[in-house]
């Protein structure tokens, strides 16, 4: 078989897919076929070329095809001559009309359109006939058919995209003008320049204007994208190229070399024990710095020696500095052996040399910090945000009647002042924060304090340039822990004072104090500022005004460390001189446009009417400009904005040798994304993999280890079920990556994103919106409907099941709680009856459907029981009283994170009987959970009761779990203890022969389930559920079994799918087809069917990368 090189694509040589191609027309595998196919392609191409050529002419003669048949009988020899004749005639008609109108004289005007000949394309206002009229009147010409020779202007209001793209072939280079040009020329009674009337679509081909949202309300993903560009501020390294050629070593050794090269840089930044030493070597050893080139080579050689034993290489490089190099080398080795790295650069700059590259990459990025801070904030202040949400409608209700007061609080140069807050000696000195302070000075400053700014130092400046401006500038590294601490303190204070807080960033927030009815907002803001200063040691500025816009403007004026209040009557004064650039939503482009119109300040902007602004800048932008220039901002201090997608991108330092490297890297990326999702309590349905692929002609990028000139590839898959599972991510990314077919060596960056986010809690229970958990969460809102006393009773009576966390579907947890269900006769019928029906049915499920019958029985008895039950509940002192209590406890735990295990432990000792109710705390404390079990004192855990322990373990992120020694043992232990007493879902319904579910179903109270159990024994081949379903098909009539039967069957099917999906997709398919047929027979099967389809599709998607050919039934 011949190598089919002619049609081979350049990128596909690394894919794991190999094939043998054949043509079906005659004989497979001959080269003749290939050439034939190529010919084919060429022909096709030529055809399209022709098509494109004719495109422009086509509409000059668009009646061609329809009229062709008529030619045979017409006097014209061909179409062309017909058109010539027609055009002639039209011209004559037009001339006749024109002369008659000029003769009549009554309505003829000045011939302003002399020499102008328009062609009207498509729908216009006014219509083409009216335009023709104007042309007649004012001495112009009107062409019915486009011709480049006759037409001077094309008039149209709108163009299809294809014509925009192919403008030249469409217009032949003629101006394309809006019809208003004609009208306004007529109105002005002279020919106006057409340029301002150029079609918008053509005129606005410039870059898109950054929107308001991009200005103030940064969103996470955007930051993530930006992040690599800044976090990887490594230095353009000219030495690399020479090193690469001169050493000609394998890439992995090379990676080490680069790592060495960066050593001086990172040591000066990091706090490691070698700090002084390294700083000295970098700063006070000029020879070392100056001879950077050769040093690099030398270092490389040293590493080579230690790594691969290249003794020959080292000898020529020996110089007086070799001692020093040895010492450096020691550092490297020590650094890379210790798992805790200070910066990514200390262990290696690329994915090649650093096993923990991904983790480290994100650990040391400032933008990543800002981006992920959002999640942290969301968790920390979730409860208050919820409360706030509830209040929102009421705020709208009287928003009109009351004047709003909004305070904008912004920390002063946050990133610097936090770092120097403990160094009072640095307070008045120019300080800048930067990730690196290396001698080359090519790292960029990320933030500078005011003394430094006075010298002209700005963020984004190279250190080199900054030092030139301000030689005494002190450069300090980031301190992320401190940032986190201060940001938390900052928001603690804000939330303490006001519950309407909109976080903009980690150091900036709006608070709406309207509802607080503060007497003097200035006093209030001052109090907040003082408290911030006292608590954090950093200063904050505040602006007070009636809208978010003005509050921000006020802060601008207030900075640094000041306070500014703009009362509504003074808004105009402040805005008058404000440069337009200061308004949010006005960027460079818009500013330039405004400058052209001689608009520099808001005062000037205000002189322009809204209509003309909208005309010039578009409806939305015009509206925004008009409003903002008057200080009108209708935005409300809203809730925290949820992120739309969660992901991780790494576009710096990405280098791979082969596919396995890439796979490892993807796995880490999956872990990172999964971790982030779990951190936010979200799951994603759409998974997008982005790859940056080096362009074939691009060399090594200028920026050290950067991505350079890249092609961006992206692919996504939408799953039927949201997920945050690493394994699923891994499978899907592997699949997505497989689609790209690229050489691992060409990959310069990768990103993984999960979007279409769903809350993980909601997910757990599937479609049940009104699950107990959501009911519990929103209970404050319902308090009015449910008396507090009753609430207490509810907790005591059916406490454990109600308080069980949302994770009913998790098998162990379910069974564990089941064990603590109070006996049926202990329940208070009155309370049960007043429960919402959804909750009732859920509890009914827990009691295997016996609750309903129990209630009806109980009703017949006297009401005395109720009284007794109430007394019972009151006499139980261990019962947690109400939600407030729970909240308090959570609050306390929050205050001392370190003590929380101890605290829980204490609670358990105090409340030995109510372990179930203690677990109710867990949803509250979820966010406070340590991210890894390694941070937990395991001796404390071991003393916990098993149910609680299971819950604690459950609530930890899944893949952080394995470091805990006996987690599984514990869970197994629990499972053994409780066992599968009845048919409630357990994880192994299909274990055993006959499978466990058969017995469960036989003992069930539901007739249908009993019947299914019987049918199982009749079925053959035994063990195939499809054969059972076959038998059900022949059963008649089918009786419905109620919700619990649906749940049981669903669970059974889910486990069956799990069992069979890998090995027997046919069986699964048969089952689903049979189920589908059963749906027409019974409502129950319809429910089961629709319940399992998402699971089925998810399972098939994971295993086979596609969807099963079945669908929902309405």
């Amino acid at each position: 078989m011949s190598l089919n090189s002619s049609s081979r694509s350049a990128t596909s040589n690394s894919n794991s897919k190999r094939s043998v191609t054949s043509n079906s027309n005659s004989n497979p595998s001959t080269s003749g076929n290939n050439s034939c196919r190529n010919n084919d392609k060429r022909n096709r191409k030529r055809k399209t070329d022709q098509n494109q050529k004719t495109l422009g002419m086509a509409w000059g003669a668009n009646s061609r095809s329809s009229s062709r048949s008529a030619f045979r009988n017409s006097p014209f020899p061909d179409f062309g001559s017909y058109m010539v004749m027609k055009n002639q005639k039209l011209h004559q008609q037009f001339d006749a009309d024109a002369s008659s109108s000029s003769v009549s004289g009554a309505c003829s005007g000045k011939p302003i359109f002399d020499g102008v000949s328009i062609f009207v394309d498509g729908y216009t206002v006014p219509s083409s006939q009216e335009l023709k009229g104007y042309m007649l009147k004012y001495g112009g010409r009107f062409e019915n058919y486009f011709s480049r020779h006759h037409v001077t202007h094309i008039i149209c209001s709108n163009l299809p995209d294809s014509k925009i793209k192919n403008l030249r072939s469409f217009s032949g280079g003629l101006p394309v003008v809006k019809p208003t040009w004609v009208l306004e020329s007529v109105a002005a009674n002279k020919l106006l320049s057409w340029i301002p009337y150029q079609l918008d679509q053509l005129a606005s081909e410039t870059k898109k204007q950054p929107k308001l949202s991009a200005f103030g309300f940064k969103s996470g993903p955007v930051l993530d994208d930006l992040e690599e560009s800044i976090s990887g501020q490594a230095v353009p390294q000219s030495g690399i190229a020479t090193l690469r050629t001169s050493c000609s070593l394998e890439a992995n050794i090379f990676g080490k070399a680069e790592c060495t090269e960066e050593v001086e840089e990172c040591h000066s930044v990091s706090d490691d024990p070698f700090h002084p030493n390294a700083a000295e070597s970098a700063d006070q050893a000029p020879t070392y710095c100056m001879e950077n080139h050769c040093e690099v080579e030398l270092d490389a050689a040293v590493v080579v020696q230690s790594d691969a034993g290249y003794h020959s290489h080292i000898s020529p490089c020996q110089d007086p500095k070799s001692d020093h190099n040895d010492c450096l080398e020691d550092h490297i080795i020590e650094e890379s052996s210790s798992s805790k790295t200070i910066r990514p650069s200390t262990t290696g700059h690329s994915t090649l040399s650093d096993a923990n590259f991904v983790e480290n990459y994100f650990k040391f990025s400032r933008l990543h910090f800002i981006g992920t801070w959002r999640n942290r904030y969301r968790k920390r202040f979730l409860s208050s945000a919820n409360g706030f949400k509830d209040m929102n409608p009421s705020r709208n209700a009287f928003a009109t009647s009351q004047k709003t007061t909004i305070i904008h609080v912004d920390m002063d140069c946050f990133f610097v002042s936090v770092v120097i807050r403990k160094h009072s000696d640095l307070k008045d000195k120019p300080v800048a924060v930067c990730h690196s302070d290396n001698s080359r000075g090519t790292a960029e400053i990320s933030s500078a304090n005011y003394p430094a700014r006075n010298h002209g130092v700005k963020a984004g400046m190279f250190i080199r340039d900054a030092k030139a401006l301000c030689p005494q500038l002190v450069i300090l590294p980031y301190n992320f822990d401190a940032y986190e601490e201060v940001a938390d303190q900052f928001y603690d204070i804000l939330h303490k004072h006001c519950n309407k807080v909109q976080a903009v960033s980690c150091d900036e927030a709006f608070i709406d104090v309207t509802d607080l009815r503060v007497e003097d907002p200035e006093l209030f803001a001052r109090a907040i500022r003082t408290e911030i200063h006292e608590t954090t040691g950093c200063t904050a500025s505040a602006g007070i005004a009636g809208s978010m816009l003005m509050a921000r403007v006020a802060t601008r004026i207030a900075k640094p460390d000041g306070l500014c209040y703009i009362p509504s009557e003074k808004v105009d004064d402040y805005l008058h001189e404000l440069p337009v650039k200061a308004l949010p939503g006005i960027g460079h482009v818009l500013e330039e446009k405004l400058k052209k119109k001689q608009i520099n300040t808001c005062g000037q902007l205000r002189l322009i009417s809204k209509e003309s602004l909208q005309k010039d800048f578009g409806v939305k932008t015009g509206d925004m400009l008009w409003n903002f220039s008057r200080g009108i901002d209708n935005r409300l201090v809203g809730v925290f904005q949820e992120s739309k997608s969660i992901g991780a991108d790494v576009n710096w330092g990405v280098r791979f040798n082969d596919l396995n490297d890439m796979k490892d890297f993807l796995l880490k990326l999956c872990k990172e994304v999964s971790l982030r999702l779990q951190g936010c309590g979200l799951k994603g349905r759409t998974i997008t993999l982005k790859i940056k692929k080096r362009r074939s002609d691009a060399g090594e990028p200028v920026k050290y280890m950067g991505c350079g000139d890249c092609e961006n590839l992206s692919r996504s898959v939408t799953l039927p079920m949201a997920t945050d599972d690493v394994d699923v991510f891994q499978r899907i990314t592997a699949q997505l990556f497989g689609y790209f077919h690229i050489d691992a060596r060409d990959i310069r960056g990768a990103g993984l994103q999960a979007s279409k986010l769903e809350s993980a809690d909601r997910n757990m229970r599937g479609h049940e919106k009104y699950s107990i958990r959501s009911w519990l969460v929103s209970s404050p809102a319902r308090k009015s409907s449910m008396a507090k006393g009753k609430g207490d009773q509810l907790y005591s009576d059916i406490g454990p099941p109600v308080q069980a966390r949302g994770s009913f579907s998790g098998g162990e947890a379910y069974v564990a709680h089941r064990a603590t269900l109070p006996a049926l006769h202990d329940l208070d019928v009155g309370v049960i009856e007043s429960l919402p029906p959804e909750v009732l049915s859920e509890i009914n499920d827990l009691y295997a459907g016996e609750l309903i019958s129990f209630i009806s029985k109980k009703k017949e008895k006297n009401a005395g029981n109720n009284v007794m039950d109430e007394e019972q509940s009151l006499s139980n002192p261990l019962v947690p009283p109400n939600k407030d209590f729970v909240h308090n406890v959570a609050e306390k735990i929050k205050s001392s994170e370190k003590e929380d295990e101890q605290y829980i432990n204490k609670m358990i000792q105090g409340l030995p009987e109510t372990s179930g109710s203690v677990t109710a705390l867990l949803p509250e404390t979820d966010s406070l959970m340590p991210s890894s079990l390694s941070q937990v004192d395991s001796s404390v855990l071991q003393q916990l009761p098993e149910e609680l322990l299971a819950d604690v373990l459950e609530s930890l992120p899944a893949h952080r779990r394995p470091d805990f020694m006996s987690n599984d043992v514990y869970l197994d232990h629990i499972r053994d203890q409780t066992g599968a007493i009845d048919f409630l879902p357990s994880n192994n319904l299909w274990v055993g022969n006959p499978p466990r579910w058969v017995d469960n179903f036989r003992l069930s109270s539901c007739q249908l389930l009993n019947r299914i159990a019987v049918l199982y024994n009749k079925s053959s081949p035994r063990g195939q559920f499809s054969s059972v379903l076959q038998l059900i098909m022949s059963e008649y009539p089918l009786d419905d079994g109620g919700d619990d039967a649906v749940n049981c069957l669903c669970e059974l099917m889910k486990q069956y799918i799990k069992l069979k999906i890998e090995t027997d997709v046919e069986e699964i398919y048969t089952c689903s087809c049979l189920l589908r047929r059963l749906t027409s027979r019974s409502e129950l099967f319809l429910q089961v069917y629709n319940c399992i389809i998402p699971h089925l599709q998810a399972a098939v998607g994971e295993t086979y990368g596609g969807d099963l050919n079945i669908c929902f039934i309405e």
Partner: protein
Amino acid sequence: MERKDNNQAKAPQGEAARILTEFLEVAITCIIFLKGVYPHGAFERRRYMNVVVHRARHPQLRDYIHSSVNGLLPFIQKGLVERVVVIFFDNEDFPIERFVFKVNLNLSYGSKVEQSDLEFSLRSFLIKLPVSESLTKLLPRGCRWEITAYFRALPEASTSKDSELIWIPTDTKQWQQPPLITPIKSMNSEPLGVQLYLEHPSLSEPKP
């Protein structure tokens, strides 16, 4: 079908792999016959595993199927091959239908594999295939087909010289969306699991 030398089939999975490749060769020929890419006269009736199957008469067609499937044998033995796919695509290289054999060879299976043990399960594929025609799509005129193998991992460079030569990258395009899957037949035994299913472009698949 002719038997091959048994010397490399000493290990149990070697035997299973050999049976599998032989089966694949027959099954792929059956699929080609079923889809009517070539006139029916290009095939002759044969008996395999005691069922009627079709075999290509044209030496080049026969050789193509034989060599590509047998070229896979060393990789199947190592458990590298995940899927063997027969792809039908139109003259734009856009796949219309894919017959996927998902292969799962148990490498740790210890005892001896007899052809008769697997025969029962494998035969059911050959029986089910001709009756699954209704599940498949009618192919447009002038379409072509190819055999593509999906590997779990990239095989080590040049396991043997001649098997290296026959492999060429495929030009066939990929679907943008996850496909719709219609299972045809599955078998699962201890030494060997095979799943045959159809893949069609999903409804949301952009048309070329």
